């Protein structure tokens, strides 16, 4: 079986028509994973996945199976998402051996639609990183160049798609964690509007910023996966409130299913692109590497050539330096509280003989957390402490409001914004990890999007020395469908 260029839609159609055996497909994927040098996965779900695949093959003609939107599609899950019965570590030693007794809302949705969970992907420990190097389980490598990082924190998911070790993947994005590795590995990744996808079961890093999102080899599969995971879920209060407040009828994608449950993509390329207003904020493109700048402008010109109205704009009020500072203060403050629960008392790491509670939990936290996690917990604890709360956390929230307003202003004139996802292409392993501050600066084009809470997609738009470059399209709140359509247009135009 040829795994390269195999899309989720191909898999569903192939299985239904009898051209693809789900069991063979899954076996082939595991063979690839076992041969791989990339270290994309922390935990594999092999026995269970094969069992499910056989069931899919056996029951594919039953009416309710035919209607499953992801029938037999292999999917890799970032290890920050809880999977019932399957070890979930967040790439941390402190959660080694933790097997959640429940499924995240998105996992319930995937199972319901017939997806096959291949395993849990590698990531930066507790999502804290931009390279997947902070994982306790070792770094993941970039499939385009094994000496380079895949980006992070959802590096395992992006690399696995890129290397055909899965068809689809889920990531989570707090400040770029889906889009950065999508950009570095040359795949598509979408961060939904804050509140679009239920966070129930996502191990929290920074609650008010993060979203689970789809990753795939192409835009249509990304839309399909988003469609499945964005079902309303009462267990995420933020999602319920935000969806209730959304004035328009949001829809995940333009995908339609006909009476026989066959997928139908309802997009007229010429009509979509004509008159589409795309703003390119110069603050987001000025400082990036020349190759990235060139590639992104080329992409934007493709839209323009097909009838889009492109305008270079300025988001003057948006000081990216303050955006980064605001992002890191909010994220680490929330993280310092979120990570307090890991004390080894109820689950996760145990160390030899227990002593009194204070000593035992201090030792477990001391050994269980990596350097970057400890750094952020300490900084976050400091930022929230008495006397500093107003100076840091509250001020960061104010900056965030300003950034939100700045995006709203830009969207008064533009349908969407285009910019590079990352300022540069994938760098060498070990190159930046010793210098946290330079690494934090790599997030400069992605974190403002999370602060504003708007949706954004990263799409491959070229290469520099064989390394992929990502184009980032940013949409209005709940206009996932618009950026997906634009992405589809771009893919089609690029041939």
């Amino acid at each position, binding site marked *: 079986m040829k795994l390269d260029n195999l899309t989720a839609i191909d898999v569903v159609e192939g299985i239904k028509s009898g051209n693809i055996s789900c069991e063979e497909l899954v076996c082939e994927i595991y063979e690839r994973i076992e041969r791989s040098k990339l270290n994309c996965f922390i935990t594999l779900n092999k026995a269970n996945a094969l069992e499910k695949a056989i069931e899919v093959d056996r029951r594919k003609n039953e009416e309710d199976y035919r209607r499953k939107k992801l029938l037999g599609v292999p999917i890799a899950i970032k290890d920050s998402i809880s999977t019932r019965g399957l070890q979930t570590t967040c790439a941390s030693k402190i959660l080694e051996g933790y097997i959640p007794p429940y499924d995240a809302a998105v996992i319930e949705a995937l199972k319901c639609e017939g997806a096959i969970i291949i395993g849990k992907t590698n990531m930066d420990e507790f999502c804290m990183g931009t390279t997947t190097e902070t994982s306790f389980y070792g770094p993941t490598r970039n499939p385009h160049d094994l000496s380079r990082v895949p980006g992070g924190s959802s590096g395992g998911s992006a690399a696995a798609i890129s290397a055909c070790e899965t068809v689809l993947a889920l990531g989570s994005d707090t400040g770029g964690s889906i889009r950065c590795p999508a950009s570095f590995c040359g795949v598509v990744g979408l961060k939904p509007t804050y509140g679009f996808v239920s966070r*129930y079961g996502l191990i929290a890093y920074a609650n008010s910023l993060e979203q689970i999102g789809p990753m795939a080899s192409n835009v249509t599969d990304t839309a399909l996966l988003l469609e499945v995971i964005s079902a309303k879920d009462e267990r995420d209060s933020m999602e319920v409130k935000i969806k209730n407040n959304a004035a328009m009828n949001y829809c995940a994608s333009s995908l339609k299913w006909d009476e026989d449950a066959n997928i139908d993509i309802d997009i007229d390329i010429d009509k979509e692109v004509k008159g589409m207003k795309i703003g390119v904020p110069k603050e987001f493109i000025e400082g990036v590497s020349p190759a990235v700048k060139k590639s992104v402008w080329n992409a934007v010109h493709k839209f323009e050539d097909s009838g889009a109205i492109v305008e270079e704009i300025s988001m003057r009020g948006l000081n990216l330096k303050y955006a980064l500072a605001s992002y890191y203060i909010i994220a680490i403050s929330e993280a310092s509280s979120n990570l307090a629960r890991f004390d080894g008392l109820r689950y996760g790491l145990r160390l030899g003989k227990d002593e009194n509670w204070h000593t035992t939990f201090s030792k477990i936290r001391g050994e269980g957390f990596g350097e970057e996690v400890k750094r952020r917990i300490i900084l976050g604890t400091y930022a929230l402490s008495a006397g500093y709360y107003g100076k840091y956390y509250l001020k960061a929230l104010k900056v965030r409001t300003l950034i939100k307003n700045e995006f709203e202003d830009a969207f008064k004139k533009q349908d969407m914004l285009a910019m590079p996802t990352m300022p540069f292409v994938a760098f060498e392993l070990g190159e930046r990890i010793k210098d946290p501050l330079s690494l934090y600066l790599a997030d400069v084009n992605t974190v403002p999007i999370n602060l504003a809470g708007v949706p954004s997609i990263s799409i491959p738009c070229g290469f520099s020395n064989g390394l992929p470059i990502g184009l980032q399209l940013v949409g209005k709140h709940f206009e996932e469908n618009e950026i997906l359509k634009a992405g589809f247009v771009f893919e089609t135009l690029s041939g």
Partner: protein
Amino acid sequence: MKSESTNTNGVKIGLECHAQLITKSKLFCPCSTDYHNSEPNTHVCATCLGLPGALPVVNERAIRYGIKVALALNCEVQPQIIFYRKNYYYPDLPRGFQITQYDFPIALNGLVQIESASGGDGGRERGIRIRIRRVHMEEDPGRLVYKGTIDTAKYSLVDYNRSGIPLVEIVTEPDLRSPKEVRIFLGELRSILGYLSVFDGDLEGAMRVDANISVGGGERAEVKNISSYKDVERALSFEITRQKNLVRRGLKVTLETRHYDEVRGITLSMRTKEFEHDYRYFPEPDLVPIRISDMVSEIKGEIPELPDEKKRRFVSQYSIAREHANTLTYDINIADFYEEVASKMDAGLSAVWVADVLKGELNYRGISMREASKRVSADDFVAMLRYFKKGVITERGATEIIREMLDHGGKPDEIIKRKGLASIGSAEIEKAVLEVIKENENAVEDYRTGKKEALHFLVGQVMRKTRGRANPKDVSKWIEEKI
């Protein structure tokens, strides 16, 4: 301890009372709150165990109960509430933070009137106004269970059944002046919460209190962990004496948190280093602010007649003594029981029998009226009183019926028959009197020579012979006649 030591002026006490609300499910998850008789860790889920990734969802009923409490305490309900995280480490706290309220609580500025003990404490008037500073909601942590005592146990176990039970925290201003006032205030509070049907004071640990105490304008000490309502007076008296002794010796009271040791009945200083917290409050990012102003008018309509009001009505409507009205209205179930009995029976007589006799028997058995009403209905009670009024049974017989109903159930007429409680006729009394006179010549002689006390002895003997089925006044007349 001398009582005067706790009665002197200058004592100021403020309370933080935590009361469990009897909702069906917990504050942030669907787990049942009915855990008191369950095996440990059987009423838990991902959310109340604080498992990674699980999210809280607010139980609106709990918020409504909180608003109800605030209204009953005459508070100003706020338009919007926000939940905060209070960060600290303790093994009973599964997330490493408690979801509670900080800015934007449910309500501010309330008032509760209490009656001081008769005569007033420290010369205070009868009606004392205790200001309520704030009312807010929070989740209960789990519970540490020690094998043996806290000092001797080799390890402790954690039961998370209690984790996430909704608590309403009621904070008073330092308006209380003595441990006795505190007890009266807490009684009033329990009574009000019971009336609102949001609280069950009979459940273990249903109300827990922290107290801030200062004497003579000195620093205050906070006493934590007064877990039983009954311990409050003891804990506070100890602490006041401790502080006064310090002052007397010219030493200063330090601002500190002290832990109440209920076994030894003393308060102990918690080592400052370990227990002094910076809670790093910040708004819970998984929950949204809740507008509650729209709920208030509807909830106002659900507030029943409260104890104070009912007390006044009982005194005027049933013409009963104030003390009886106090006893009858403390527990809403007793008040309702009394009103049902009084609607069919002489209200004054009913008050005596419910407030003095029935309540006394309940206290003796340590059971609540709600529990007792499973065995004793108001109709049974009325039937029993009718027998008594007609003279079919004596006072002692009536009391016997109440005891029998409480202990084993049954109907009054059947109990009268089974236990032979019917008053006896004059022939039988005469027979018993003659026998007693014959058997107690010395006493009879004493009486004849003017020792009036001998009569009591003889009446007692007759009562014993008739097993209480005769009226002592009648017996006394018979004896005088026969001698």
